[in-house]
């Protein structure tokens, strides 16, 4: 009977159960955290949550100061900061709810142990258990706090932004922005507006790029790895190192270098003319179609060594007997590739391929450092170019034109695309798990 009451009290007064079971310090710490949260909410929290609904009401402007008899600048509400602090409050509240659930379960456990007559840890023993049974609290606290503050919170903030009209015309502190519901999605996806006329081609190119980049590197890397690992090639390590060189050079350097080499007066054009292949400079990066091919080829140059390294390990795992018996049966090398190597590789690397596909849809570096999305075209919404992926366009929208709402909307759309591919990958790998494995 007494236990019930204490446990009910501890729903309201955190740590009551712990104190009752002799864990006084622990209970007091719980109570302290609860009190500080309540104080925070009373002092500023509710005000902030209310701001989240209105996003500010006073526009910055000239207000008449009656005492001085002049017009003076009145600071308006800054919608962006209001939104941000609202999000902070929401995250703190969520964290508190989780903490509250934790105190309840901790209190209940303590009561149960007391009832069964077992020993309840005192504070020192609790601290010690951090290194043993409760090591997860020790090891995960830093990552969880870090993720909460610098990843989850900003993410919620940006997701909310997709439902506002925070674009270049509504820039705080001069102007307020407000909630607009799913208007941004509708403009982007369905209307025959300039924006959707930009969005669909960019999405199309993102998909084409993702598949072309992933599969060209996949097959190129597999081909290279098969050559290097085949019998009769000496100095395997030297060959591998030559190709790993391109992988070891930081991408921003090799991509910038290649971009300058592909310019109108860059070394490729100079050499092609000197070697007599062409009379005039080729528009590697300045013509839309050429540029699209160029980025895929340069990505091939960068990506093949990566795949080669990864595939090397897997190739060595294929049982050699398979090849020997195939050889005795008179199979040609191509036949062996088609019937042994490729099915095996395909089986092992499907999850890798799909995650690679997703990361290629979001391959900011290659596009941004090579072409920065150029060549620009007048058919597209401001700033977007022929080689822009959704991510590079998103970046330009935040950095150059300050259309944060559009950027956030695109971010959510990218999330949806990635999520679809991940789900496909999951369902596939579950199907594979149920099989006996490759045989």
């Amino acid at each position, binding site marked *: 009977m007494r236990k019930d009451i204490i446990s009910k009290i501890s729903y309201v007064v955190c740590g009551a159960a712990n104190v009752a079971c002799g864990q006084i310090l622990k209970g007091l710490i719980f109570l302290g955290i609860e009190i500080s949260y309540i104080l925070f909410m009373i002092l500023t929290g509710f005000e902030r949550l209310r701001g989240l609904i209105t996003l500010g009401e006073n526009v910055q402007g000239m207000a008449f100061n009656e005492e001085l008899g002049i017009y003076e600048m009145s600071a308006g509400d800054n919608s962006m900061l209001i939104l941000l602090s609202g999000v902070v409050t929401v995250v703190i509240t969520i964290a508190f709810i989780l903490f509250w659930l934790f105190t309840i379960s901790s209190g209940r456990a303590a009561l149960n142990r007391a009832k069964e007559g077992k020993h309840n840890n005192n504070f020192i023993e609790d601290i010690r258990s951090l290194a043993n049974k409760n090591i997860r609290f020790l090891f995960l606290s830093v990552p969880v706090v870090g993720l909460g503050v610098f990843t989850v919170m900003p993410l919620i903030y940006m997701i909310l932004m997709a439902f506002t009209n925070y674009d270049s015309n509504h820039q705080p502190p001069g102007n307020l922005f407000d909630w607009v519901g799913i208007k941004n999605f509708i403009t982007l996806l369905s209307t025959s507006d300039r924006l959707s006329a930009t969005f669909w081609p960019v999405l199309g190119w993102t998909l084409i790029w993702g598949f072309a980049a992933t599969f060209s590197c996949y097959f190129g890397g597999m081909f290279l790895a098969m050559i290097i690992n085949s019998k009769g090639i000496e100095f395997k390590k030297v060959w591998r190192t030559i190709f790993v060189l391109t992988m070891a050079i930081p991408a921003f350097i090799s991509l910038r270098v290649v971009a300058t080499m592909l310019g109108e*007066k860059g070394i490729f054009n100079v*050499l092609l003319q000197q070697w007599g292949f062409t009379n005039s400079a080729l528009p590697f990066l300045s013509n839309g179609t050429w540029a699209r091919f160029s980025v895929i080829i340069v990505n091939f140059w960068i990506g093949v060594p990566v795949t080669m390294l990864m595939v090397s390990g897997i190739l060595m795992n294929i049982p050699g007997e398979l090849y020997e018996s195939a050889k005795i049966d008179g199979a040609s090398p191509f036949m062996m590739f088609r019937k042994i190597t490729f099915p095996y590789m395909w089986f092992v690397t499907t999850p890798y391929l799909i995650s690679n596909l997703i990361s290629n849809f979001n391959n900011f570096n290659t596009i941004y450092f090579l072409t920065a999305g150029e060549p620009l075209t007048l058919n597209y919404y401001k700033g977007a170019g022929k080689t822009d992926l959704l991510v590079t366009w998103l970046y330009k929208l935040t950095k150059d034109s300050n259309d944060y709402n559009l950027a956030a909307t695109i971010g959510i759309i990218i999330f949806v695309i990635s999520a679809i591919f991940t789900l496909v990958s999951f369902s596939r790998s579950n199907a594979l798990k149920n099989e006996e494995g490759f045989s």
Partner: protein
Amino acid sequence: MNRTVIGLNLKYFFHSIVATLLMFTGLFLPYASINDGRKNILSIALSLTGVNEKSGLTLFMYLTIVFTIMSFVLCVANIIKTTKLSFKTWQVLQACATAFWTFLLFSSKSILEGGNLVKGFLNKNLSIGYWLGFVFAYVALVFIMRVTQTNRGYIALTIMSVIWVFPILWIVLTALRAEPGYYVGYFFPKHLTLDNFAKLFAADSVIPFAKWWLNTFIVAMCACVINTLIILATSYILSRTRFAGRKAFMNILMIIGLFPGFMSLIAVYNILKGLGINQSLFALIVVGAAGAAMGYHVSKGFFDTIPRAIDEAAIIDGASRLQIFTHITLPLSKSIVVYQALGAFLAAWSDYIFPSMLFGDKQSSYTVAVGLYWLTDFRRIDAYYTQFAAGAVIVAIPIVILFVWLQRFYVEGLSGSVKG
């Protein structure tokens, strides 16, 4: 032709002979259409001997002829008496001939124009003689390699390595080039110098490269230590312990990971501003460390492959979980530790988007990635191109050394602790 020679696969002997003969006839067929009709390569080479100021590349043409003839001679010699040694010699000569036929594709213009034989030459003017020689040089080489049972992969590997190394060679040569400027019309620099490197570090330099390098080094070292610890700790917990909410935590991480990371950079920037640490290296380190846990997959997969029985045995012996982590798991996972540390270092070393947004125009805080990108802006590229190249080389060298040295761990880390 039913001879057998040990170590040779004479099935393709006949093919090699035919291909070599066809390549050889390429010498006598028209090489290129030039002003006064079509001439074969031999007569062009003869007429070039008379010219005084010819291109140095003319040597390629002579060597092509010499090696083709020598390969033909060896072919005849092998018909008369087939031995392993003479076949190997034939293979080497044919490889040289093939290489020079290929070089001719790139140097014909210079050779013919240098000898004043033709103006405005393009490779489409090359005629049947050249293409016959070029194609059958490769065909003959493939067949000869089949006879000597050499792996044909060497041909592909050679061509691919040239393509892969070409841009790297270009940047190294540019870094050593004495003539400034981006628009130069030649590949090999006229004068070599180390000035570009010296200028980067000179006290009066416009580019605070030493500062940039130091900034990057500090950030990358901190990231290397902190991020690796965080990743290892997270993946250890997710792999070795079971607790309520573990699956949920992993799912949340996965969902977060599906959003494009820099979508929220603006918000991160505002939070940093609120904390009063924007525009500082510290902010870079903190934000990097905060997101590190997202990359737990690879090392979790690795820890999963370490038998749990080891842990259980240690627990029976009275070891705490922390001790198991530091004394058992980590020593067993050397390659994954190296892999993660290398990855964290590289990521911080070459990160561009966040630092560029964070530092804006505060040049003294730039990292090398931001700084070097800033140098390739179209307003600066012509003046600073050779220095940019030198900077690129300096930035790349430590990474290349690390990478080549630790390659083994990289591959091992990816393939798990248990070897197949």
